[in-house]
């Protein structure tokens, strides 16, 4: 299967996460408005969306909490349409989606679960952490598209 090719790891969207945060871990990246403290993920770089913001602030990059609690979860038993990348020649492997409440930011972030984490491994309110992962590999461009994943804290997955 071409496993000998060295793949370049490239974020599926640039600037949404870092694999080398100050604490050495994987962190989602948002932006924070210096005028009103509002936090945005996905990052908002052009303007603050808080209607009560006094204005005049700047939007600075900020790493988000590495952990949160499950707000809800589901899975995808059928192949989603493009632009989701999957190989139609391969049998469909369902993925798990987790909506995670980040307490410090007061926001819910949606992400795929780490490989091996199914809906049976999750419960609303369970603590999870964000980790890096690969969304899909593109042999033609020798690219591994990286993304964020959630997995239960202390889990083996």
């Amino acid at each position, binding site marked *: 299967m071409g496993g000998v090719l060295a793949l370049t790891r490239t974020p*599926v*969207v640039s600037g949404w996460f870092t694999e080398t945060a100050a604490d050495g871990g994987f962190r989602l990246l*948002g932006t924070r*408005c210096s005028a*009103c*403290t*509002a*936090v*945005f*993920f*996905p990052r908002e770089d052009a303007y603050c*969306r*808080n*209607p*009560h*913001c006094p204005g005049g602030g700047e939007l600075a990059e900020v790493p988000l909490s590495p952990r949160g609690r499950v*707000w*809800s*979860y*589901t*899975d*995808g*038993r*059928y192949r*989603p*349409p*493009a*632009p*989701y*990348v999957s190989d139609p020649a391969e049998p469909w492997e369902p*993925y798990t*989606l987790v*909506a995670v409440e980040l307490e*410090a*930011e*007061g*926001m*819910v*972030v*949606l*992400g*795929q679960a780490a490989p091996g984490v199914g*809906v049976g491994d999750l*419960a*609303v*309110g369970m603590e999870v952490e964000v980790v890096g992962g690969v*969304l899909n590999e593109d042999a033609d461009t020798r690219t591994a598209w990286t*993304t964020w994943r959630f997995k239960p804290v202390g889990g083996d997955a």
Partner: protein
Amino acid sequence: MSADVAVLGAGMHPWGKWGRSFVEYGRAAARAALADAGLDWTDVGSVVGADTVRSGYPGYVAGATFARALGWQGARVTSVYAACASGAQAIGTARAQILAGLADVVLVVGADAAPKGFFAPAGGDRPDDPDWLRFRVLGATNPAYFALYARRRMAVYGDTREDFALVKVKNAAAGTLNPNARYRKAVSAEEVAASAVVADPLRLLDICATSDGGAALVLTSMDFARSRGIGDPVRIRAVSTVTPTYPRTVLDLPDIATDSAVAVRPAAGSFRASIARAAYEEAGLGPDDLSLAEVYDLSTALELEWYEDIGLCGEGEGAKLVREGATALGGRIPVNASGGLASFGEAVPAQAIAQVCELTWQLRGTAGERQVPGARAGITANQGLFGHGSAVVAVR
């Protein structure tokens, strides 16, 4: 001054997978609505089209497309896009034109020819589009969002999959009585339970299908209705269309995250509840005055949420209502007497208009076997991508 407008005509092209152009469906629905109103197309002073994004330019300029198909006659024209709320915003636009004195007779039309399977974003490589991103990065389909809400209800309120199935059973039973519905077969709870899981905990029969279809209304000023000898028409008393309030704390299509609540405390109540509340305030009535409601049952679990959001019961009590049969035909407050999206499927620009068609027939007392006895007031509720929400109140 009354802010009412009269509904003189309602018409549909039956829902299904017919394989024809949306223009044909819209034209057929428009002709049916005009015939119902006893008016000619040349009597129409303004046409408002609800857009579909799946048919290229003719779909983007639906108002002119329908006007051309009916035969150019010089009417004022408007095209409206608001995703699943397109039809409601088209009705809102028509009503505003009538109340502003810009037109006496307005034809509202929505129609769609939907693809099979999941709705997908517009094509191309578009990382600036949140709708494209949720598919590319997460594979998050519309049913995935519906499933997140369903799972959350199970965890917070104790709803069960069996409760969700009861909604499908109820709506399918109503759909058997509706000649415009795509599905006209009764469905049992066992059949729901035996259908394939699409997005856990929701199964195929918990989620509405995509369909072709068309719906149209002829709206007029009250003076025009009286001039035609119609003194007591069905009246539209309110059309709310609101955006959410920052910070929006419930994950909604097509977003990947909610707003942060660190800078501003969230307002009490949900966005969906604010849609109905605005309509009740405008109409000067409340949930206790309703004879029936038509809500977007994109999933069975979502219908239960609407019960709470339109004020039929308290938060978390939706499942109790369906278990008691309160929202079935013959119950205290029937919801989706038409059969709902469960029986029709989604024909996006048409469905909010179809909801008002149903209210019209119910309030006239001409809904046949699915008639809600003595219906005097009804509400519709719908929601589209990107923070659109609308509700229509109609009375007799």
